[in-house]
């Protein structure tokens, strides 16, 4: 089965070489697609030096926009399975088989950092404010989708063909895309499952967003979620 790994990268020339080397060692038969999201550093050069496909956006579209392009490319190139991978070294290549195994009985798999009571408990901890915010998101996603997800914002995800085609055109392009993408897939009647994975601390680069902007996007996603409450029942009836 042809599998592609999509890596959105914005000014990640520091951490990217290590990530690409690790991927080449762990999953040599997967096609690596780096999306250079309008970087001002040498992200594209680093990708080219590693010999992987690099899609260079003319300006910064944000992570959602970069991902959509990656999905579109993968769909057009006829890949059957695609997974997202972070350019900052946060994701662990040893967890890829776990993620992909989930695709055998699901259309989309989300790697979760919070598998409580699981033997593979990641030990990933967040501060209180962020914990509260994530808790509210979890609760709203549960109300909106009727399902329980422990890690709604995880960017370690795999999907297969029907979802890939949907995401190639309709992937949410604003920041916090991961929450919206979860809703989108569930509303289209796709099976979405979570699998517990281990994650690491970021190895380079900076967090993409902080404080005020984060708060704005948080409120925006809350509005999207609240506006979508109960909508799944209607769509579910037609699916």
């Amino acid at each position, binding site marked *: 089965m042809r599998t592609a790994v999509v890596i959105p990268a914005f000014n990640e020339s520091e951490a990217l070489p290590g990530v690409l080397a690790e991927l080449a060692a762990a999953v040599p038969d997967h096609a690596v697609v780096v999306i250079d999201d309008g970087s001002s550093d040498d992200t594209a050069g680093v990708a080219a030096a590693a010999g992987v*496909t690099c*899609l*260079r*956006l*003319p*300006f910064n*579209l944000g992570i959602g*926009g970069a991902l*959509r*392009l990656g999905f*579109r*490319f993968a769909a*057009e190139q006829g890949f059957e399975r695609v997974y997202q991978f972070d350019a900052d070294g946060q994701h662990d290549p040893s967890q890829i088989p776990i993620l992909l195994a989930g695709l055998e009985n699901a259309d989309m798999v989300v790697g979760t950092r919070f598998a409580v009571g699981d033997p593979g408990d990641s030990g990933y901890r967040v501060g209180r404010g962020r914990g509260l915010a994530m808790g509210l998101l979890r609760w709203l996603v549960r109300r909106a989708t009727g399902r329980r997800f422990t890690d709604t914002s995880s960017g370690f995800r795999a999907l297969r063909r029907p979802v890939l085609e949907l995401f190639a055109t309709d992937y949410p*392009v604003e920041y916090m895309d991961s929450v919206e993408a979860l809703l989108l897939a569930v509303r289209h009647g796709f099976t979405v499952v979570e699998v517990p994975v281990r994650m690491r601390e970021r190895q380079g680069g900076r967090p993409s967003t902080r404080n005020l902007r984060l708060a704005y996007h948080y409120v925006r996603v809350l509005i999207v979620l609240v506006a979508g409450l109960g909508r799944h029942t209607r769509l579910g009836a037609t699916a």
Partner: protein
Amino acid sequence: MSDTAHLVFAVLALLALALIVRLVRLQALKAKYSVLWLTVGALLAVSAAVPGVLDWIAGKVGVAYQPALFLLLGFGFLLLLAMHFSYELSRLETRVRTLAEELTLLRQELDDKQD
């Protein structure tokens, strides 16, 4: 309103009209916006030139204080316009994004061919 004030506002309305006409002639305004702004300019000019016209309309629709009617209409118009611009901006942003995607994919194809 005093005659002087009327004169001042009539002149301002005429200046606005002249600016709109000039922008349209320079093709700096799209036709759909030029119609809109010419209509607004004409309405302003008429209400400035004919002193009784606003009072008459206010009387007809039952508004006792004539400036309130003017402000209400103006505010409603600007609100609609702002909403329209937001709509257009959203549409443009979607298109620009799609174009950026297309451009990137085309550049990739070209690079592949040259290798």
